[in-house]
């Protein structure tokens, strides 16, 4: 519908309808974390299998809106097979993409946006429209925060 096409891009709806890597992995050996959005009750589960510094397998689950589910699905597809350092870079790039309009205490006041790191975002680029809807940014970043928790666990 008019007005929402930036938010609900076709690729986002596609990931929402058919989330990739949906399911669970056995823990251990996989690491697991559950992320909650206390504002709306959304929850996301992230399972990651790490071998020799590489994410060899990932599964996602939980319940959430189209943005949170699509974001988790896109994330899972983007990081599978990637090294932990590549995942770090991707995480920073996504967070930077999402936090353009967020206030930060250490932000300089020049009004100049920092250049995003030189990382290929692929499908994840489609979530850029979310920044126009600040309430939904947390939906989009929940799975990435949960991934970081799982990797640290």
């Amino acid at each position: 519908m008019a007005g929402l096409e930036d938010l609900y891009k076709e690729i986002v709806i596609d990931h929402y309808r058919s989330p990739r890597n949906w399911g669970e992995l056995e823990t251990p050996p996989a690491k697991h974390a559950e992320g909650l959005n206390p504002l709306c009750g959304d929850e996301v589960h992230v399972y990651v299998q790490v071998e020799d510094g590489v994410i060899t397998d990932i599964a996602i689950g939980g319940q959430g809106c189209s943005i949170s589910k699509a974001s988790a699905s896109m994330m899972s597809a983007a990081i599978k097979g990637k090294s932990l350092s590549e995942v770090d870079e991707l995480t920073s790039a996504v967070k930077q993409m999402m936090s353009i309009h967020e206030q930060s205490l250490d932000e300089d006041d020049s009004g100049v946006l920092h250049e995003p790191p030189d990382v290929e975002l692929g499908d994840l680029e489609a979530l850029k429209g979310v920044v126009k809807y600040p309430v939904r940014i947390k939906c989009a970043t929940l799975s990435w925060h949960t991934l970081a928790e799982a990797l640290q666990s």
Partner: protein
Amino acid sequence: MSTDAGAEHELDVAAIRADFPIFDGPVNDRDLIYLDSSGTSQKPRQVLEAMDAFYVEANANVHRGAYYLSDQASRRMEGARTKVARFIGASEPEEVVFTKNATEALNLIAASWGRANLQTGDAVVLTVIEHHANIVPWHMLAEERGIELRFIGIGDDGHLDLSNLDTLLDGAKLVSFTAMSNVLGTLTPVARIAEAAHAAGALVAIDACQYVPHLPTRLADLGVDFMAFSGHKMCGPTGVGVLWARRDLLEAMPPFLGGGGMIANVTTDGFTTAAVPHKFEAGTPPIAEIVGLGAAVDYLDSLSMEAVRRHEVELTAYFLRTIKERHGDDVVVHGPSEPAERGGVFSFSYKDVHPHDISQVLDEHGVNVRAGHHCAKPLMKELGVGATARASLYIYNNESDVDRLVEALDDASDLFSF
């Protein structure tokens, strides 16, 4: 306002809307279809003007100076206390304690009355449909005191399951529950539960946040010992809530917060407290907000709460009928199906569309509804959902608002159903 006048009077919604400046212009370039009054109500000009007038004409701290202006400020604040007391049928203004919100009022009951009266093993009875504000303070006290929390369950059609009430009340010291669910709209049988609780030797507190703004409130009919509600859901400003309690209870309770305004005397050895209600109002109160709440009460009185209730019952019936006619089984409205047994709060699910997405799509049409767990996670669990979309009605809503919501849902279907 007499009951007779209320019986004849009907709400003039067009005139009411004209009193609310937010409906004057577009919001985000759209007509505002505001259906989140359970979250907070909009504010009429009369309330905004009363608060403005306080700052312009009478601003000074209260209960402090002998000077004229301070006396004027105190009079306006205490005048508001009297209005609120009359509005709920309290026997005297001193039973009305101003807090910063209803949450603080409920915390005050738990922290003051609870700590003074509850020991390890004592039971407090709640319900599974409570707002977190009437659960968490009791969890906190349970951790501190080892009290036992018991929960009345949910039965058919969104009503409480009272079949085991006697068992739950056995040995209970307090029953604390909502008078109207902020999720289901369910009106609970307050007087019946209060009578049973009193017979079992327990006191009764109600969370009346969704009740006082929408129904005529007569404390004598409700038969409770404590009642908490917020100002901002009844046309008043944010920042002020109310705890009403029986005077003898307030007098026996220890103070809640300590500081200026709540003392009779302070020495290096200790302090004595002021009389109620000031004993519970430490520090400078939200004076302008209290004055605003007084104006809100005047405004609602001028409409007649009987007429407000009749309007909402009619609009509730219209909502339930219209959404079913258009969307049939695609929509599930939680809570009582009989308009007389509920308020105008509708948590609904629509096909498999997530409430966030429903709310986002409706927002494109200017239709404001809440999405989430509504601070009632135990109830969400009972309903077997993570979240719901919630539309809620008030005095300024009309059938056209309901129509706009019901029509806009089609777009959610186009985008998300598969």
